[in-house]
C-alpha cells in the first residue's frame, strides 16, 4: 500500500521534474551558446545601436518617473518614521542609500523587464513562428549573432546608464520632498547628501543594473526563441519572459547585495 502510494507519488512528481530538468538544461545550453556568439564576429553594430535606443532612450521616461516617486516616498516615509525629527542628514542619507543601492536598480529593471523583455520575446517569438528565424539561417546569417547578441550587449551596457540617471532623479525626488514639503534647508540637504556619498553603494547599484539588463535580454530572447504554436505561443513567451526575468532580478538582487555588503 505504502509502496504503491510512493510509486504514484513519484510518478506524479516524476513528469514535471523531468520536464523541469529538461528545460533547465535547455536554458543552460541557450545561455552558453548566446554568450559564445556575443564574442565571435560578425558583429551587427547597427542592430546593437537600435537596441540601445529602444532599451535606453525610450525607457528614460518610465525609469525617470519610477525613481522620482520612489525617492519622494522614501523621504516622506523616513520623516514620518522618525516622527518629525528634523534631521536633514538622516533623511538625505536614507534616500541616498535606498535609491542608489536598491530602488533605482531594482525598480528600473522591473520596469524595463515589463517594457523591453516583453517586446523582445514578442518580436523574436513572432519571427520564430513565422519562420523568419529559419529564413535567417537559410540566408547564411546566424540568428544568435543577428538577434540575440545585440540585445544582450545592449541590455548589459545600457541598464547601468539608465540606473545612473535613475539615481540622480531619485535623489532629486527626495530633495524635492525634503525642501518643499518638509521645509529643510536646501544647502544643508545637499551637503548632507554629498557627505554620505559612497562609491560602493553606487557601484553595487550599477553592477546590479548590468546583471539585470543581461537577465532581461536573455529571458526575452530565450522565451521568444523557443516559442511555438502561433499567436498563443508568442503570448505565453511574452508572459514567461516578464515573469522569469522579474523573479531572477529579485533573486540576483539579493545575491549581489550579499556579495557586496556581507562580511
Amino acid at each position, binding site marked *: 500500500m505504502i509502496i504503491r502510494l510512493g510509486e504514484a507519488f513519484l510518478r506524479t512528481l516524476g513528469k514535471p521534474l523531468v520536464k523541469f530538468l529538461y528545460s533547465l538544461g535547455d536554458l543552460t545550453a541557450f545561455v552558453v551558446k548566446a554568450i559564445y556568439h556575443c564574442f565571435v564576429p560578425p558583429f551587427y553594430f547597427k542592430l546593437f545601436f537600435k537596441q540601445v535606443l529602444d532599451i535606453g532612450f525610450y525607457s528614460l521616461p518610465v525609469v525617470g518617473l519610477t525613481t522620482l516617486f520612489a525617492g519622494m516616498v522614501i523621504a516622506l516615509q523616513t520623516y514620518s518614521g522618525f516622527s518629525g525629527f528634523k534631521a536633514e542628514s538622516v533623511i538625505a542619507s536614507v534616500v541616498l542609500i535606498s535609491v542608489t543601492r536598491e530602488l533605482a536598480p531594482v525598480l528600473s529593471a522591473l520596469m524595463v523587464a515589463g517594457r523591453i523583455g516583453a517586446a523582445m520575446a514578442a*518580436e523574436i517569438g513572432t519571427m520564430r513562428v513565422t*519562420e523568419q528565424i529559419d529564413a*535567417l*539561417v537559410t*540566408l*547564411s546569417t546566424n540568428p544568435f549573432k543577428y538577434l540575440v547578441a545585440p540585445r544582450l550587449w545592449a541590455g548589459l551596457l545600457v541598464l547601468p546608464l539608465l540606473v545612473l540617471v535613475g539615481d540622480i532623479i531619485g535623489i532629486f525626488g527626495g530633495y524635492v520632498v525634503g525642501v518643499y514639503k518638509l521645509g529643510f534647508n536646501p544647502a544643508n540637504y545637499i551637503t548632507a547628501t554629498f557627505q554620505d556619498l559612497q562609491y560602493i553603494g553606487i557601484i553595487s547599484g550599477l553592477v546590479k543594473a548590468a546583471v539585470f539588463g543581461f537577465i532581461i535580454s536573455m529571458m526575452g530572447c530565450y522565451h521568444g526563441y523557443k516559442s511555438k504554436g502561433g499567436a498563443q505561443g508568442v503570448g505565453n513567451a511574452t508572459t514567461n519572459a516578464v515573469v522569469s526575468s522579474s523573479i531572477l532580478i529579485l533573486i540576483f538582487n539579493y545575491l549581489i547585495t550579499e556579495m557586496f555588503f556581507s562580511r
Partner: protein
Amino acid sequence: MEKEIKIRIRDLHKSFGKKNVLNGVNLDLYKGESLVVIGGSGTGKSVLIKCIQGLLTPDSGSIEIDDIEIVNENPDVIDRMHSKMGMLFQGGALFDSLTVWENVAFDLIQNRGFNKKEAKIVAVKVLRQVGLTEDIADLYPSELSGGMQKRVGLARAVITRPEIIFFDEPTTGLDPIMADVINDLIIESAKDLGATTLTITHDMASARKIADKIAMLYQGKIIWYGTVKDLDKTTNPYVRQFINGSSKGPIKVEK
C-alpha cells in the same frame, strides 16, 4: 550517360514525439533538374525541405549535397551549403522589420559585400522579374497583399543565383495568371541559371509545367517517382487519386 546527383537522400526518418512524419525517404535530385514533390496536406513535404536545409535534424538517415553529408554535420559545413541554396518559404517568412528591397537584398548586403546602393539596384531588378514594380521597394512586407509577399519571397530566394533553389508552394495564393508568371520564373531559374530546383506544390497545372521529375510523398515515403509523361500513364491508385483530386480512393483523409 549518368547524370550528376546534386542531392541524395537515403532512408530519412523524422518524427515529432510519437508522430512519424518521414519514414524512410529515398530521393535523388539530379543536377539542373526540376523536381516537384506532391502529396497531401501534412504529409511532411515542408519537413523534408527543412531537413535538407539543416533547419530540422533528422532522426536517422543521410542527406548528401554535392556528395557532402550534412546530417549531424557541424554548422560551418551547413553554412557553406546555405550560400549555394535559396529558399522560398511556404508562408513567405519575410523579415517584417525590413523594407521589401532590404528583404530581397539581405544576403547581398550581409554576406556578399554589396553596398546599399548597388544592392537596391539589383533588388529592384529582381522584383521586376517577379512582376512587382519599383514603388513597392520601400514598403514594409505587412503593407503588401499575400500574393505580393510570396513574390517578394521568391525574389529573395533567387537573387543570389543559387545552385539549388527550394520552392515551398510558390503558386498557392496567387491568381492563375500570376501563378503562371511564377511558373515561368521557376523554369527560367532552372534552365538559365542551371539551377537545381525542388518545388512543393498542390497545384497540378504548375507541377506539370515546371517538373522534369515528379515524386509523390505519402505516409512518410516516396511512393511514386517519374516524369510528367509517366504521371499520365501511371496506374498507381494513390497518384491517380491525387491528380484527379478525388476523395474516393486508397488515400484516407483523417477527419
